[in-house]
């Protein structure tokens, strides 16, 4: 029964990783770049929610509402001012630019908010602590269920946006072939900027759950970038969006089962599963090769 419990906890944790990975997968699918500052952007979102809560005594779920438009704008500017320029010059430059950005964000957060470890769990109220006891060994936490639910809504919403709306169809067309998309009148730069704005806003939602589920500090970003990237790759780079959520869930299950074997192992177990998936001739790798060929 503990194994069943582990798998269920892993699935809920996986919803969280999927949420963090969603923006990364969207940007990779569209522009073939990995934003190495993605984890730090999620942490930045958590800090912005923290700032709102300083002035307004409410729950983080409400405090994120004014933060989301700010993040959308930041994402738009990030693409227009930095990434757009870096895209012109090959594979290396976007990697190096976003790595530099990651260091800048981390240290600005350190300067602005001190190195103190914070958490928004207390402000989230009973949601952060409540749980349903199903059997003696099986319990489902409210925050876990909510994380997974929100993740499914985000992925479903994004999928609907991409398949049913005009801007979404423009994004899919640009992802397939930017030059041809331009020929039929799509402004690919505007499409990229919109996508980055969405990716950054979703990262902020991930940041909110990060801040409620555990604690965070200015240098938390890289850890979550790695988890998010692992989720994307396990799901199959360049595959469908749902595969990314699935990848997050596989990573989550690997971590909870690893933690069951030895309390010191969860992260290591996740890394090992990631490396095994990279090694396997099928799985994530097949997709990846097909895309980059």
């Amino acid at each position: 029964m503990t194994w069943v419990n582990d798998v269920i906890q892993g699935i809920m944790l996986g919803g969280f990783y999927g949420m963090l990975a969603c923006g990364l997968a969207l940007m990779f699918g569209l522009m073939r770049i990995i934003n190495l500052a993605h984890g730090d952007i999620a942490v930045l979102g958590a800090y912005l929610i923290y700032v709102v809560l300083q002035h307004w005594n409410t729950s983080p779920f409400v405090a994120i509402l004014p933060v989301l438009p700010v993040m959308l704008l930041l994402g738009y500017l990030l693409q227009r001012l930095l990434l757009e320029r870096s895209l012109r010059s090959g594979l290396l430059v976007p990697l190096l630019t976003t790595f530099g950005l990651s260091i800048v964000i981390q240290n600005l957060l350190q300067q602005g908010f001190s190195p103190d470890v914070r958490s928004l769990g207390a402000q989230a109220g009973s949601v952060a602590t409540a749980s349903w006891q199903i059997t003696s060994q099986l319990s489902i936490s409210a925050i876990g269920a909510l994380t997974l639910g929100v993740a499914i809504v985000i992925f479903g919403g994004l999928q609907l946006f991409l398949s049913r709306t005009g801007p979404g169809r423009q994004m899919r067309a640009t992802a397939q072939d930017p030059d041809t998309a331009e020929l039929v009148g799509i402004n690919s730069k505007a499409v990229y900027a919109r996508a980055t704005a969405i990716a950054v806003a979703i990262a902020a939602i991930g940041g909110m759950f990060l801040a409620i589920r555990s604690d965070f500090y200015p240098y938390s970003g890289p850890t979550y970038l790695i988890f998010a990237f692992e989720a994307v790759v396990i799901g199959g780079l360049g595959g469908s969006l749902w595969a990314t959520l699935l990848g997050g869930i596989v990573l989550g299950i690997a971590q909870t089962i690893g933690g069951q074997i030895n309390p010191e192992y969860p992260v290591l177990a996740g890394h090992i599963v990631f490396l095994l998936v990279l090694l396997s001739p099928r799985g994530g790798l097949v997709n990846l090769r097909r895309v980059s060929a």
Partner: protein
Amino acid sequence: MSAQPLAAAAGAPARIRRWTRLSTGFTGGFGLLVVAMIFVPVVFGANTVQDMTTLLTYLLMAVMWNALAGYGGLVSIGQQAYIGLGAYATVWLAQHSVNPYAGMLIATAFCGLVAVPLSFVMLRFRGAQFAIGTWVVAEALAIWVSLDNALGAGTGTSLSQLDSYAPSSREHYTYWMTLGCAAFFTGVVFLLLRSRLGSSLQAIRDDEDAAASVGVRVVAGKRILFLLAAAGAGAAGAMTVANTLFIEPTAIFSVNYTAFMIFMVLVGGLGTFEGPIIGAVVFYFMQNLFGNDGVWYLVALGGVAMAFALFLPRGVWGTLEERTGLRFMPLGYRVSGAAGAAPEEP
């Protein structure tokens, strides 16, 4: 090399050569400088010796990262894996009664060996996949080491075996060791890039697919760089523990090392031989001048790296080379006398 028939068609006799008077003088001067640096401990005090050890360690890191990224097109964010591994292997060997200095050399070779099986996994990836794949390996190694009690687990361990040397002679030996390693690896990269393999590596750097299509063995070339960079970073790790005498997993496996490497190479010039050397000197002085300013210094470091990546992607040296045609340490060939060829250098 293919310039010869071209030049003949243009009706002018072409001369293809590698060395100019300037580059002969400069390369010779560089060699003399290395020889002169042997005598630093004789002439200068302990502080200078330690500073020079640090500078040479930076230089070694920058040169090796540049070999990997600048020539192999492999942006690694996981070179700290080998820095940590080199440092911990040195400590482990010293615990098993190997002389610490011999241990550093063995640890360096060990890092190169570890990279052999890893290369078969990692070289299947390009771009971001490679970058984060190497990073995950470094993270996994850091966790693995921090679970080992014999190596001090998470709290770290010291290279106490070096205490059997008097402090001043210990510093001298460490300095000479670092100088030797830096000179060795820089020399190997120089010779490698000038060889036939070097031409294929530069072709890979410029366009991997085109290089493969004319028969360059892309993966073999990349593998050699991968192993060399691993051994070099391992040596830098061994030097670091000899210089600081104490290591702990989170610090020695810190991604900051890679951030420093990226900074040095981007500022100096990615994919140029001289660039990382210049970058290391710039970085060393920046560390000394602003290193105590903490957070703002790191913000500036990241910002400068971004600015170089976006606006001056060839770095200081690469831009200078492009504008002036100067080559201090020639890796390629130059054609002169033919129509349209670069003008003669004085």
